[in-house]
Structure formats: C-alpha cells, structure tokens
C-alpha cells in the first residue's frame, strides 16, 4: 500500500517514457491462470538460486548509537543514514503533521555558520546529496555522494545535524510553499484517497494524518521547531548505516570525532495498538468533478511486521496482487482491460497493519472493477491456490533475492530493518526455506483472516455525479468534497 508523503515536492517535468507495466514487484499465477496461456516451451532452470546476504560490520559509538557498515569498493561513492529514535507520531497535537517534518526539512536550510544557499552550493560542489525526513520510527538524516570529498561531506552532515539555526525566513518560506503545495495535492486522486483511508483505518491517533493541515502550518512558529529539536534530536538508541567505498575502521574515528560530543536520549518511542479489522463494510466517495477515471482503494486492518503470520501473508499477497503475474493484474488489467495497473499489499510495520489494493479505472467500469476485485478477494479466501500457482509465487519471492544482492545500500537497509524489529540476523537467510514449506491451507487461512470482503473499506475518488449510484450497491456511501469535508452520509 502506498503511503502518502507528508511534504510534497511538485515536479513539473513532462513524462517522456511510457511504460507497459507499472511497478516491478515479483509475481505468480492463479488457479485457472486467467489472462495467461502457458505453452511451457521456454527453457527454465528448475534450480532456485539461494543466496546469502552479506552481514555488515558493527560497532557502537560512545554516545550510544550503533554503527553498521557494508563495504562496496566498485565506485568511489558512499551513502550514509543516521536514524534518530524520535517518532513523528508524538508531535504536540496542535502541530500534528507539521512540526516533525518542518524540523527535519529546516536542518539543511541554515546552520550557525552556513546559510541555506551555501549548504546547497557546497553539496553541489562536493558531489553530495543530503536529505532529512521525519518518520514514525525515527528521523532519518542521509547523505550520499562521492568519497573524493568524504571528510568535507561528513563535516557538513554533522554541522546540519548538530548546529541548525532554523532561520525564521526559511520557516516562512517553507510554510508558504507548503500551503501552495497542499492545494496542488488536492488535485491528485491518490492523495485524496489516502487521506480518507487513513482516517478510516486509524481514526484515534496521529497515524490518520497523511498531510499537514493549513491551520497547523499557519500556527507553526520557530519556537515550536527549536523546542521539538531540543527534545527529540538525541543520539541514544540511534543507528548509523553506511554503505560504499569505505571501511568501519576508517569511519569509526571520524564518527566519534564528529558526533562524540552529542549526548542524550530522545523520549521513548510510542506504543500504539494495532487494532483488529473493522467489522462493518463502508464506502467513502470523494467527489472530484471532471474526473475521467475513478481511483479506488479497498482495504482493512490486518497484521503488523512482527506478527507470526507475516510470512504467510507475503506469499498470499504474491498470489493475489503483487505484480503482473498476480491474480488482480491478470484479471482486471490483462483480461478485462479496465485499468493500466492494479496491485495489493500489506503495510506491516510497527504502527501500521493494513492490507489493501489500489487502482485507477475508467469511470464507466467503476462498478464492474469493484465486483472483480471482490470476486478475487472471495476466491482467495474460499479456494485453495493450485499447486503450480503457489509454486510460482514461492519461486518469485525466493528467486528475487538474487537481484536484491545488487544494491549494497539495499542489503544494508534490510539489516537495519531486522535490527529495528528485533529479528534475528539470519532472518533473510532462513526466509526462503520458510516460504518453500508454506502449505496452500496456510495461505488460505491467512486470506480468511486478512483479506476483507463483508467488511471491506472502499474509498473511491472520482466524478460523484457518475459513480454515486453504482457505489451505493456496495454499501452505505459517505460523500466528501475534495477539501476533505463530509457532504452526505452518516459517520
């Protein structure tokens, strides 16, 4: 499931490439293999290539941060992420959706000795990119670039992280642009759908926030940002991951020198309940006049990352909605031609536990497309997946590990993820064997628990005058404006 970014960058470049299949997730085949005719004449190696992920070298800084390094000496470049253990879900309620992101953004807009322009110019000259973002599990401050100028780039990173000036003028500028961007985002169907869906799935806390509100933006002061920084930007419990043309030996003394004086601990990470699925079916319609397509999201709550059903759900989703070999794609795009793309996914994390599917379909087939999605959801709950389809899904998942070895930064982020979830370091090495032994019954059981039908939550963004009536066939409809205001229906 796609999560909306909270801060929006508007891009204005024309698309030059037109691709035939959106996304690139692995796949497999359904029971009847609708949408596919298999001639079985292509040469296929039956061996499934097993791989072992390289393990990063690890160390700990005196300020309590752990360090993981994965070497890759092919080109003179590196990437590094500092994860500070402060959650954006703990913002003061009146600044929710705003202050954590603003603080992260403003880090690179001025330090005690450099203004925003100097920072941007220095980065361009040194061949580096620096970004900071506030997430639910921590603030990420990342730098990547050429090792030609490693020391200069690290010094800049430390300056931005430890000596931010938070200039008033930069804050004003940010707020002004965000107010503008918010308007532009309200033109985008996916934004409107996400906003509504997360309000439905996580109604009681900050998880429902997918974008800053204009009110909170206007309320934000420099003092708020300074306070937020002082309370949250502390090293204890944090992680540093570095990949590239460097070694742990080279990096440790540099990191101690730059970050050793930084001390303290952020507030503990929040504990938020992962609620069970919502019981009643619900349809939310967001009116977007003049739409020629309906953007559909269907979802409900399912599992978190540490749930024992995680691996079964991974295989289930591979069958149902991951990529062009999946049932949803083969039926709704390849057979019916209703859409250019459709996929499903679990967003299983510490704080999010939803499962859902999303697609854009032409307005006239809104009802037909929803019926087909429901048909596939029912089918995966009722019928055991045929052996060859399940085998294809297993091969897709395990076989794709060979590709993921290509990116050293990707391998490192897998290792960091395991550490965050307290999973064993050999988790990914054992994953293939666990996938291979899952039975069709186990997959169906997962579907029955987590793929919603009677209690499906439907969000549709489109021209209400054309889709209001058909949507009523799926349940009571609440209607919203593109400003997010409830127009009709009961809540």
């Amino acid at each position, binding site marked *: 499931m796609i999560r909306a970014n909270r801060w929006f960058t508007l891009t204005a470049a024309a698309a030059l490439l*037109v691709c*035939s299949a959106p996304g690139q997730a692995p796949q497999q085949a359904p029971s009847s293999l609708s949408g596919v005719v298999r001639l079985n004449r292509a040469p296929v190696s039956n061996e499934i290539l097993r791989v072992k992920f390289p393990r990063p070298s690890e160390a700990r800084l005196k300020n309590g941060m752990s360090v993981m390094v994965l070497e890759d000496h092919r080109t003179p470049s590196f990437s590094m992420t500092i994860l500070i253990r402060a959650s954006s879900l703990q913002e003061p309620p009146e600044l929710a959706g705003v202050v954590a992101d603003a603080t992260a953004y403003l880090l690179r807009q001025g330090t005690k000795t450099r203004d925003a322009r100097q920072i941007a110019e220095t980065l361009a000259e040194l061949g580096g990119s620096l970004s900071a973002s506030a997430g639910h599990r921590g603030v990420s401050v990342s730098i990547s670039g050429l090792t030609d100028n490693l020391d200069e780039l690290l010094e800049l990173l430390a300056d931005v992280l430890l000596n931010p000036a938070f200039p008033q003028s930069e804050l004003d500028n940010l707020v002004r642009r965000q107010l503008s961007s918010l308007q532009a985002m309200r033109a985008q169907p996916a934004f409107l759908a996400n906003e509504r869906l997360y309000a439905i799935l996580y109604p009681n806390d900050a998880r429902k926030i997918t974008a800053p509100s204009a009110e909170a933006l206007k309320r934000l002061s420099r003092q708020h940002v300074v306070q937020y920084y002082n309370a949250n930007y502390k090293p204890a419990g944090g992680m540093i991951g570095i990949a590239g043309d460097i070694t742990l030996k080279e990096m440790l003394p540099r990191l101690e020198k730059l970050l050793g004086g930084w001390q303290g601990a952020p507030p503990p990470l929040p504990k938020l309940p992962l609620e069970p699925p919502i019981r009643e079916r619900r349809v939310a319609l967001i009116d977007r006049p003049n739409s020629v397509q309906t953007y559909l999201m269907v979802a409900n709550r399912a599992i978190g990352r540490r749930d024992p059903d995680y691996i079964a759900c991974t295989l289930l989703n591979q069958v149902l909605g991951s990529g062009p070999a999946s049932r949803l794609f083969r039926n709704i795009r390849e057979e019916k031609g209703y859409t250019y793309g459709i996929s499903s996914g679990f967003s299983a994390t510490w704080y999010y536990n939803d499962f859902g599917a999303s697609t854009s379909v032409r307005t006239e087939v809104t009802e037909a497309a929803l019926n087909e999605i429901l048909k596939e959801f029912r089918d995966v709950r009722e019928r055991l997946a045929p052996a060859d389809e399940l085998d294809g899904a297993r091969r897709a998942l395990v076989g794709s590990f060979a590709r993921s070895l290509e990116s050293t930064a990707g391998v490192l982020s897998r290792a960091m993820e395991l550490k965050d979830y307290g999973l064993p370091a050999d988790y990914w090495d054992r994953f293939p064997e666990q996938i291979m032994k899952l039975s069709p019954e186990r997959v169906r059981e997962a579907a029955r628990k987590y793929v919603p039908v009677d209690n499906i939550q439907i969000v549709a963004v489109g021209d209400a005058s054309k889709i209001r009536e058909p949507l009523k066939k799926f349940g009571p409809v609440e209607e919203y404006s593109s400003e997010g205001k409830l127009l009709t229906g009961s809540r």
Partner: protein
Amino acid sequence: MRKFLFVMLACAAGVSTAQAPKPIPPVQFTDTRLDNGLRVILSEDHHAPVYAIFVAYGVGSKDERPGRTGFAHLFEHMMFKGSANVGPGEHFYLVFTNGGTMNGATSPDTTVYFEVLPKNQLDLGLFLESDRMRSLAVTQANLDNQRDTVKEERRQSVDNQAYGPSSERLPELAYDAFAYKHSVIGSMEDLSAATLEDVKEFFRTYYAPNNAVLALVGDFNSAEAMAKIKKYFGDIPRQPPPKPVDFSEPPQTAERRDRLEDKLARLARVSVAYKIPPGNHPDIEALNAMHIALASGESSRLYQRLVRESQVAVSVGGGVSERIGPGLYQLSVMVQAGRTPEEVEKLMYEEIARLQEEGITPKELLRARTAARRSAVSVRSSVLSRASSLASDAVRFNDPGRLNTIEQRRAAVTAEQVRETARKYLRPENRTVVVTVPAASPPGAPKPAAAKKN
C-alpha cells in the same frame, strides 16, 4: 590497545592525503554484429548472481505517421501478448515466477524491452526476447485488449492528470516536423483507428534484428553467452532498413505561445522550451553544464531567485533532451498561489539574460563537472542501468561506450562555451511557452487560500 593504534593510523592516513580523485573504472564490453545485423554488446560483471538483458529497437513515436499516433507504444504492449512459443501473458508469468523483473518502454526515439533475472535463467531471457523478435503473435483479440489498456494508461497519465494536456501541447507547438510534434501516448482517436494490418507491417519493418541492439550485462561467461545468442537469434532474417525519419525543422523566427485552462490544476504552471540540436551535437554538453547552473536543484540560479528570494514559485524543474533529431531544453515552473505566470516569466528571462551576459562562475563549472562524475557513478549502479545505457546509446548515437566518457565530455566544457551556448539557443524567438492556469473553480468550491502569512 594494538587494534586501537592501528585504527588511529588508518584514520590519519585517510585524513591527511588529499589525493587526486579515484578514477571510476570504465565499463568493459564487447561490441559484435551477427550476420543478420543484430548488434550484440556483452559486459561481464560477477558482483551479484544476476544479469540484465536489454533489447533496444530503433523505432519510437518519431516513426509514426499522421493518423496513427500512439502506435509505437501500443505495439510495445503487443510484445507482451505472446509469440510462436510463448502464450499471451506467459512472458510476465515466466519472468516473475523465476525471480526476475521486466518491463518495456517507448520513447520518441526508441522502444526498449528488458528482463533482469538470476544468473541460472540466462536461457530464459534470451529465449523470450528472441521468440518475440522472430514470431510475434499478431491477433485481433490481443490488439483490442491492449488498446483498452493503453487507453486507460492515457486516461491515467494525461486526461485525469493536472497539466496532462499542457504537457502534450508543448511539443505540438514547438515542433514543425511531425516526428516529435505528437505525444508518445497518442490520441484516443488514433488508438481506435489502429488495425491488425498496421501491427503486422510495423513488426516486419521495425522489429528486425538489423534494427535492434541487444545488451547483456552481468554474471555470465561471455563466450558461452555469445554461443547462446547466436543459437537463439542467429537465424532471424534481416529486413530492408526502415526509411529515415524527416526531422527537418525550419529555423524558428518568433516566439510561440499558448495558454491552457486546466480543470484539474490548482496552481498555474509555466513551461518554456528552446529548440536545441540532436543529442550527439558538441553543444549538448555545454547545455547540460548550463542547466546545472541555471535550473538543477537548490543551488541553481532559478531556484534561488524564483523559489527562495522572490517566492513567486513553488518549484523549478527542467532538462536537456538528448534526441536523435532536434531536442528541447525545457524549463518548468510551478507558480506560487497568489502570484502570476507573468511575474515568473519576467524573472526567468532576467536570469537567462544575466547568464548570457556574464556566463557561469568557476564554482558553477565545478558543480557541473561534479554532477557528471556522480552520473558516471550512478549509471554503473546496476546491471540494468548499464545495459540500458550501452544499448540505447548504440541505437541512438552509434556510441555504446558513451557511459565511459561522461566525465571527460563534461570536463571539456569551458565557462566561455556555456555563455556562447546560452546566447545561441536561449533566444526569445527560439522559445515556445505554454502557460497553464487553473480553470475557474466550480460553484461551491473554496477559493484558493491567500498565500500571505504573517
């Protein structure tokens, strides 16, 4: 204690040496032509147990005729609907269920297809690409089915998107020759008009081995791979070469301009395009260096002036298109709510005039060179990006090794050349401007928020 000392020494050595930048190793490859004209580029790399196969055909929307816009891309979709030994949809199925990934893409100049697979599936990738080059299944059912999908793609990427129509309008206005005047996605009307005979003819003419380049990059043995390539592709017959495309553009003598109302847009947008020469023209590198200084990223002049200082804009973007025929240098600026496209244009042209007057600074030149060095690193990051670069540059510019000269080409650019290039191309009479404004709000919709704060 010993270990500690060693660490200190290593550190000292690392810090004190201000050595010359490490060279980026060139990508080694072989470049061969089979008897049937298929150009084969092989590049071994044993870093990870994967390989990429990338087939680039010398056909794109530039080869379409009036009344058949969108056809090259529609055809690309047909390439996934089966061939003599691969059933409809089986291509997707085989690639993904064997741990691979794949896609295809159509641009004005080329149509490309690729798979990335574990190394033990080398035969699979070669078989799939050869079977469709040899024997594409051209049926009415497949055509109708993919026509629907492509129309949906058009709705999603153009008709249901803010700024979709203006993005099509810009090349339509800027170009005179049909080749680049129309969009890759094409019109609904032309998509409806495509016939089975069109598909057959297109396949015969353009999907011949002598009109294609195959690049294979990754974990294989080159001699074995070449033997397999000959086995799978060697007997596909060559065809007469397609007729050359007419790119000729009469010199532009006056500014071209249009203003579009967009019902889905909430902010105004200004797009400006200057006509520039083909991608292998010597001026292109100077234009790329100029773009870094003028409009690339937060250190650029337009970002600083329009977004930060005067706050008339929300974002600035753009780039140099490197085409077989004449390209465009495009700038696109999203206007801040409460400000006007006129204000944006005025400041843009002021900055361009300053560039033409003063040229760029030594630091801006350094940034342009550093950016090229980073591109050279990033193109090496995966077997797919290397295969894409090798094959596409072979098709477009007959220069597969272009990825090995990124740094040198940029390093040869001087500040004086950048100024001359800005004077030569960024002239008012050489530009096309498309301004998009939000259509009047429907009744009941809230007014755009005032942009004032404080």
